[in-house]
C-alpha cells in the first residue's frame, strides 16, 4: 500500500477508545509473558513478537502519551509511523482474536477485545491487509465479501431448493425467525444452508431468508472499519424488523455471532429488537422442545469449538448437548471447549493471503489434537473454521475427516 500512513488519525482513533476498562487493561500488563504459550501463533512460530502482550504495545503507548501529566512532563513518547508499520502484521496477520490469552493472564486482560479496537486505529491510518479491506468494501458495496448480491442470493436459494427438492423460504412478508447466511457457506458449503432449511422445515418453524439482510459475516468489524460494521449490522436488523422476526439465527460462523449477539446493539447504538442465537443454540432449543429428533450417528467424531461461539460466546455447552445421545462415539480433544486451540483463521486471518503460511502451520496443533483422540472426523460449527481447516488439511495432506455439525444433524433427521 503506497498511500501515506496517517499517524495522527491512528493516534486519534486509539484515544477515542477511552472506556474505563480498556484504559485499565492497557496499563495493567505486568509483562510476565505467560500469555505467549497460550497463543497458537507464538506456540507455532516461537517468535517472541507473537506474544499477545506485545500486541498491546502501540495502543498502550498512544494512551500513555495522552495521560496528563506524563505528556506534559515529556515522559511518554508519541506513537510513530514506524510503530504502526511494525505492529500492523502483529495485530492483523497474527491475531485471530480468539481470546485464549485472556484465560491465562493473571491480570485477565482482554487482549482480543483490544486488538479489535486497535485495528480501527490502523484502518484509520490507512493500514491493514488489502484483501481484508477489500472484503469489507465488497460487503458494503455488493452485500457480501464474496460478491453474493441480493439477486445472486435469491437465485442460489431457488436453485438449492430445486436441486435438493426442499422448500426454502425467501422474503416471506412475516416470519418468526430470520435465517442468515455466511457467504462462505453459499460459495463453498451450500449444503449447510440446505441443512438449516431442512431442519427448520421439519420442525415446522415459520422462518425466512431475506434479500434485504442476509450476510451474517461482518468484515467491517474484522477490518477495523466501524462504518462498514454498522452498515452490515443494520441490514440484518432492518430485515428482521420488516418481517417482524423475534429471533435472528446466525449460521455456522463464529465472528458473525459475536458481531451480532454481543456487539450488534453497541454497533448500532440501541438494543436489538430481537434475540440473536447461533444455529447451535437454536438447534439445542429445538431439541429441548422435542422438535429435533435424530437417528444415532455412527463413527467417531470430535468437536472443534469455534472461539467466538465457545470461549468468547458462551455457547460452549449447546454443541455438546446436541451431540449427547446422538453421536455414539464422541471424543473430546484436550484441551477443548473454552480452552480450545483456534483453527488459525479467525479474526479475518483466513482472508489475508499473506498470512496463509503461518496459519497453515498453526493448524498442526489441531491435527495433533485430533490424532490423540483417534476420532475419524472433526466437526465444527463455523464455516470460516471449516474453510481454514480444509485449506490447511490440503497443505498438510492430512487424512482426517472434516464436517459441519449442522450438516451432520440434517443428515440424521428422523
Amino acid at each position, binding site marked *: 500500500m503506497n498511500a501515506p500512513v496517517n499517524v495522527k488519525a491512528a493516534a486519534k482513533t486509539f484515544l477515542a477508545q477511552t472506556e*474505563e476498562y480498556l484504559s*485499565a487493561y492497557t*496499563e495493567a500488563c505486568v509483562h510476565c509473558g505467560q500469555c505467549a*504459550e497460550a497463543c497458537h501463533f507464538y506456540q507455532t512460530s516461537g517468535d517472541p513478537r507473537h506474544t499477545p502482550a506485545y500486541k498491546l504495545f502501540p495502543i498502550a503507548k498512544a494512551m500513555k502519551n495522552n495521560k496528563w501529566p506524563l505528556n506534559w512532563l515529556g515522559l511518554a513518547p508519541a506513537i510513530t509511523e514506524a510503530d504502526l508499520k511494525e505492529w500492523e502484521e502483529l495485530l492483523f496477520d497474527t491475531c485471530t482474536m480468539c481470546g485464549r490469552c485472556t484465560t491465562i493472564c*493473571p*491480570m485477565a486482560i482482554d487482549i482480543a477485545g483490544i486488538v479489535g479496537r486497535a485495528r480501527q486505529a490502523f484502518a484509520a491510518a490507512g493500514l491493514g491487509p488489502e484483501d481484508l479491506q477489500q472484503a469489507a468494501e465488497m460487503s458494503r458495496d455488493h452485500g457480501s465479501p464474496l460478491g453474493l448480491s441480493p439477486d445472486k442470493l435469491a437465485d442460489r436459494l431457488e436453485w438449492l431448493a430445486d436441486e435438493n427438492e426442499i422448500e426454502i423460504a425467501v422474503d416471506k412478508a412475516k416470519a418468526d425467525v430470520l435465517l442468515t447466511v455466511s457467504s462462505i457457506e453459499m460459495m463453498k458449503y451450500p449444503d449447510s444452508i440446505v441443512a438449516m432449511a431442512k431442519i427448520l422445515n421439519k420442525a415446522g418453524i415459520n422462518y425466512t431468508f431475506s434479500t434485504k439482510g442476509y450476510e451474517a459475516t461482518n468484515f467491517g468489524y474484522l477490518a477495523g472499519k466501524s462504518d462498514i460494521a454498522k452498515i452490515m449490522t443494520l441490514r440484518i436488523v432492518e430485515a428482521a424488523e420488516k418481517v417482524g422476526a423475534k429471533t435472528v439465527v446466525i449460521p455456522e460462523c463464529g465472528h458473525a455471532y459475536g458481531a451480532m449477539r454481543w456487539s*450488534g446493539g453497541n454497533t448500532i447504538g440501541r438494543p436489538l429488537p430481537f434475540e440473536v442465537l447461533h444455529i447451535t443454540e437454536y438447534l439445542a432449543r429445538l431439541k429441548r422442545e422435542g422438535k429435533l429428533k435424530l437417528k444415532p450417528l455412527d463413527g467417531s467424531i470430535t468437536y472443534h469449538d469455534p472461539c467466538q461461539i465457545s470461549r468468547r460466546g458462551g455457547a460452549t455447552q449447546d454443541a455438546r448437548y446436541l451431540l449427547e445421545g446422538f453421536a455414539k462415539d464422541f471424543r473430546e480433544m484436550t484441551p477443548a471447549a473454552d480452552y480450545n486451540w483456534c483453527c488459525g483463521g479467525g479474526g479475518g486471518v483466513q482472508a489475508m493471503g499473506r498470512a496463509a503460511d503461518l496459519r497453515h502451520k498453526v493448524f498442526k496443533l489441531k491435527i495433533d489434537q485430533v490424532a490423540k483422540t483417534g476420532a475419524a472426523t472433526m466437526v465444527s460449527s463455523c464455516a470460516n473454521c471449516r474453510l481454514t481447516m480444509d485449506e490447511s488439511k490440503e497443505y498438510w495432506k492430512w487424512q482426517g475427516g472434516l464436517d459441519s455439525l449442522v450438516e451432520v444433524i440434517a443428515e440424521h433427521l428422523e
Partner: protein
Amino acid sequence: MTLLDFARGPALSIAFAVFLIGVLWRLFSLVLLPKASDNSPARADSGSAFGQGLRGFWRHMWPADPYLKSSVFALVNGYAFHLGLAIVVFGLAQHIQFIKDVFGISWPGLPTGVITLAAIVTLASLVGALVRRLTNPVLKLISTGNDYITWLVTVLPVITGIMTINHLWLRYETLLALHILSFALMLVWFPFGKLMHAFLVFLTRSRTGVVYGRRGVKI
C-alpha cells in the same frame, strides 16, 4: 538531623504523600473515564455483575489446567514472592510496631525463623524473576525500563531489610535509615510504574469477569 531522622521524618512523609496522590491520580484517571454501556442483553442465567466480577477475580488466581505446565515458573515464583513478601511485611515485629505507630493498629508478630525463611524466599524469587526476564526471549522482548526499575525498587527494601535485621556490615542506625529510604523510594515509584498492578488487578479481573460472565463464559 541524622540520616535516620531524615529517613523517618521528611523522606517518609514526602514518599507517602507522593504515593497517595499518585495512586489516587492513577485510579481516578481511570474510573472517571466514561463507561461504555452495553446494549447486548446478558445471558439469562448469568447472575449479577457483582457476582461475575468476583468470579472473574477468583478464576484468575490460578492458571487453568492446560497452562499449568507452561506457567509453572510464573505460578511458583509469583506466589513465593507475594506470600514471602506479605509474611515479612506484616509478620515482622518491627514492621508491626511501625504500622502501630502510624495507623494505631497491631497484631502479634511471627517467630524470627519464619521471617528469615520468608525473606530468603522473597529475595530468591526476585533473583529468579530477574534472571528469567534477562534470559527468556519473550520476556526480553516485552520488558521495558519500567520492569527493571520496579524490580530494583522492590529488591532494595528486601536487601536492606535483611541487612538491618542481621546487623550486616554497617551501623544499625545507618542500615535502618537505608532500609526506610529504600522503602520510601518504592512508595514514590509505586504510582508511576507497574507496582500499580496491586490496585489495577481488581479493576481488570473484575471487568473481564463481567464481560465474559454476562456472556455465560466460564473463564
